[in-house]
């Protein structure tokens, strides 16, 4: 399928740089500032957009595993709020579906962690925290790579694709 999203974005960027930005009023600093941000955002989107599906699939799988492990901590009974049905294996892979699944799993994980923190045994509370710390570290590594083009992250392990495929130059580690 052509033009790809990336090809279209590169076309938009080129038109912005060549024709639109030079035509903006030089003395309108607010408009100039917004145009600069639009261009910077285009660079950011070009850096990551082809990895969005892989990103959501990675999060979905990681949170599914986390929810299963939290459910195994038995001092607090699981409820419907702590469960997300397994995806239909016949469903056509779709970015919106992946995102919805990942989000539902995050909500269930949060409810499960909250329940364990409130009513769980000391051992289960510690175990739940350790599991959450591990996921937080891995999620953070993904986010550092995803947001690298904004210039804010200070320790970027690599581009987002290399992080998601485990080929980052700096290995993503669990919290110790």
């Amino acid at each position, binding site marked *: 399928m052509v033009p790809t999203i990336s090809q279209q974005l590169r076309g938009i960027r080129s038109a912005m740089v060549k024709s639109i930005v030079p035509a903006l009023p030089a003395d309108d600093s607010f408009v*100039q500032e917004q145009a600069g941000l639009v261009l910077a955002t285009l660079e950011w989107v070009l850096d990551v957009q082809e990895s969005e599906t892989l990103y959501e699939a990675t999060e979905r799988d990681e949170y599914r595993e986390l929810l299963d492990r939290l459910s195994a901590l038995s001092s607090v009974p699981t409820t419907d709020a702590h469960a997300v049905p397994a995806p239909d294996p016949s469903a056509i892979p779709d970015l919106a579906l992946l995102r919805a699944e990942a989000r539902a799993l*995050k909500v269930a994980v949060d409810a499960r962690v*909250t329940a364990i923190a409130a009513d769980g045994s000391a051992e289960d509370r510690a175990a739940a925290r350790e599991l959450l710390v591990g996921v937080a570290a891995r999620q*953070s590594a993904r986010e550092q790579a995803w*947001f690298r083009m904004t*210039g804010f*992250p*200070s320790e970027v392990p690599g581009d987002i694709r290399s992080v998601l495929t485990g080929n980052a130059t700096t290995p993503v580690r669990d*919290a110790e």
Partner: protein
Amino acid sequence: MAGVSFPAMVTTEHALTSASEGVERRIEELRRRHPVEPAVDEVLSTKLRRRGHDVHTARSVEDISERLHAFLAHRLDGPFTISGLARLPGGASKEQFGFDLEWTENGEPRRDRMVLRMNPPASVVETHRVREFQLLRALEGVLPVPRAYWVTQDHAELGEPAMVCGFARGVAAPTKGEHRASGLGTVYGPKLRAKLAPQFVAHLATLHALDPSTVALDAFGVPAAGTTQGVDWRLGMWDRVWEEDSFEPHPTVTLTRQWLWDNRPPIDRISIVHGDYRNGNFLFDEDTGEITAILDWELSHLGDRHHDLAYAMLGGWGHLDDEGRFLCSGLVDTETFIAEYERISGLSVDPERLRYYTVLNMYWVVVATSASGIRITEDRMTHLDVMMNFLSGLGASSMAELNRVLEGA
């Protein structure tokens, strides 16, 4: 036709009423779980009531000028003229317009450059203009702050709550240096640093040493000293905002909130806290190195001085000098900062509380940039659509830093 449209209208009104009742129930539930100061509750509740109804539209200069004229006519006795009205760049929260005002004050004809600082329908931080106004008035003559002239919290006057203050001369960053959003990570260079750093520390010390009970700040809640009440209000506020604005849970936020509630330190002495005290939020004269105005008081509150100290020391604002020392807000090394602050203010600095407020500050940065900024863009309620999404990179960076700080905690 009337027979068809009437029931449809009833249905619509019923749906609107139900939606409105749903919002009010949600606000009551949020109030119950997250106690905050009354003025904070007012702006957060207003945000929820407007969500889904109001969007930001680019207003013409003519429209702003017309409303501003009516606004000033209610406040000025004599004739006046407005000229040179134009939108100002910079900032990440409020809409700002500069204008010249020819008017008469105490019988004296004047021509002043002014700034109209106005809420968009929603901001990365929801704040109360009257609080900001009261604080600027209280600090006039104490610290270099813009002179505050007039304020309204009434949407009817200018379309949104707004404040008019004097235009402060100066620059936020060296004009020949690298330009970055809102002065984040501003690099001043050794000559400017030598002039700016002592003022930066002294102004903060002066602010915190001031007794809040001696100034008129009735829009502020006064927490009880020796308790955690002031911390509870701040945590309540950011917890509530996260709940209102976030799109999905985040493990770092869950861990951070738990740690913050488990480790709340009592506030030994109540101070006026700026809330956003860092490089980029003050102006200076590039030739003399004098700080001409401390800006962005919208997050100010009464609380713990360590809130400002820890914020000014955050890694994201500073950098290393030639000798490898970290410069807080790009200005002063940590040891000198603390020593000079203690000497000038007569107030102690507690490393444990600094650590606590480092976490609390990063938490609010995360809430604002990873939740609120994206939410208000999605809802089309901001004038800074692209910037708000872009700033989520700061949230991601702060999440990573929180993971490091809380590791093993």
